[in-house]
């Protein structure tokens, strides 16, 4: 009994000391969300990771055919994330900005997983799976997404099915601002 108490006490100390901690707590990467009416909200990676998330498969290809992945990825669906600033609706566009000066624009339909070109592992076009979900990814293969690969926040397309490849232009790296237009 004494031994059990000792173990519990050690565990409590470890927790109190922060050894079992939020893996995103030390990431200094504010994300600014801007709603269609101009509402702004700044979120930390920790706050984003605390939102309801989805996990699945992600796989991208560059414009010259270099494949990136496959990854097991986790993140927040972009369409759900934008509920933080009033949501996004039909006819509106979503502008995703990166810290390196890159910009990509998504349609409302694309955020629903439609109008996205999908390729198989041989880079032949295939039907878009119903599970296709564009997300703001913060974890790949079980660890916080690394800066060198475009983290800590990167747009990704997630599917339940493996080996569904999408075009890399959508996979915006180093996302630091998302605006709803229209």
């Amino acid at each position, binding site marked *: 009994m004494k031994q059990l108490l000792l173990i519990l006490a050690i565990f409590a100390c470890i927790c109190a000391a922060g050894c079992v901690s939020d893996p995103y707590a030390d990431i200094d990467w504010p994300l600014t969300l801007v709603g269609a009416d101009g509402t702004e909200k700044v979120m930390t990676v920790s706050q984003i990771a605390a939102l309801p998330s989805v996990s699945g498969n992600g796989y991208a290809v*560059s*414009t*010259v*055919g*270099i494949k990136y992945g496959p990854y097991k990825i986790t993140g927040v669906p972009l369409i759900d994330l934008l509920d933080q600033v009033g949501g996004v609706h039909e006819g509106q*566009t979503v*502008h995703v900005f990166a810290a*390196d*000066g*890159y*910009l*990509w*624009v998504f*349609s409302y339909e694309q955020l629903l997983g439609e*109008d996205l*070109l999908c*390729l198989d592992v041989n*880079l*032949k*076009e295939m039907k878009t799976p119903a599970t296709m979900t564009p997300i703001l990814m913060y974890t790949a293969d079980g660890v916080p997404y690394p800066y060198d690969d475009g983290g800590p926040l990167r747009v990704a397309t997630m599917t339940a099915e493996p080996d569904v490849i999408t*075009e*890399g*232009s959508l996979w915006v790296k180093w996302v630091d601002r998302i605006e709803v*237009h229209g």
Partner: protein
Amino acid sequence: MRKSLLIFALLIIVFAVCSGCVAEEKTVVKVVPAGSLLLPLEEIELEYEALHPEIDIQIEGHGSIQAIRQVTDLHQPIDLVVVADESLIPDMMYQEGPEGVNYTDWYTPFARNEMVLAFTDSSAYADEISTENWYEILSRDDVKVGFSNPTLDAAGYRTLLVMMLAEEQLQVPGLFSAVIGSSFDPELIVNKTDDGLAVELPVLLQPETNSKVAIRDASMFLLSLLESGGIDYAFDYKSVAIGQGLRYVELQPEVNLGEEAYASVYDDATVYLGFQRFSTIGNERTGMPVVYAATIPYDAPEPEEAEKFMAFMLAAFVEGGVGYPAPL
């Protein structure tokens, strides 16, 4: 005993070194070329490395703007930049980097290309199309046409420039609308003013479902669609069509963006992209001859080796080969 062990260990080391187990590290030369140069550069890389086994040429293809951004925005250690639009180097690299020195102050133009229409034996009217009638064939309702995304790929906005110039230079009123513009909602319109021809693209460039136009992110996906029969004709560079073993039809020199003599005609046409994809370069693309150029960034990790490889590469392009853009 200890002495024999020492001798034994030394013998193992000598043997390992002689047999190549302790390999000499190669000098890496990083090259970022435009996607349309990948095929020739793979050949050139092999030839160069065979002659210089101590060198490892590492090639990473990108769109031309992205290739330059590896140096200017992403600060990657790049030894040689090779792009499909010579104007991009002064536009994006003749400016100070973080150390107060220009990314580069020079470039060497070395090859040219031109836009063509690639097709296959299965394409509609494949046996009928020619330089004289291509625009009439493309206008037919049952012909599907593809081009790459103008926001992502120079061949994409160059397609729009070709079609604008074709309507004007070949005197075919309504051609742009018939082949491209009417497949979008709202329709893409060519604005004709005293300054020339201009098309403003919407933020989202998506052809209507079941229209005659298909757009893909890049040439390789477009040509895959062509080969699978998803489209009948694809606009691309001549060297790419040849490199892929596709049939193609040449376009008139006043519209194909391939002739220096027509530079003053080409620059009548301008495309305004729907949004500024990169903060470091604007969204205006004006017609000019397709000229390839190379430069070595000021902070290249291996500038001397880059210079040697570049000289070899330039000589290889003068000699030419299947899928090589034509030398200047």
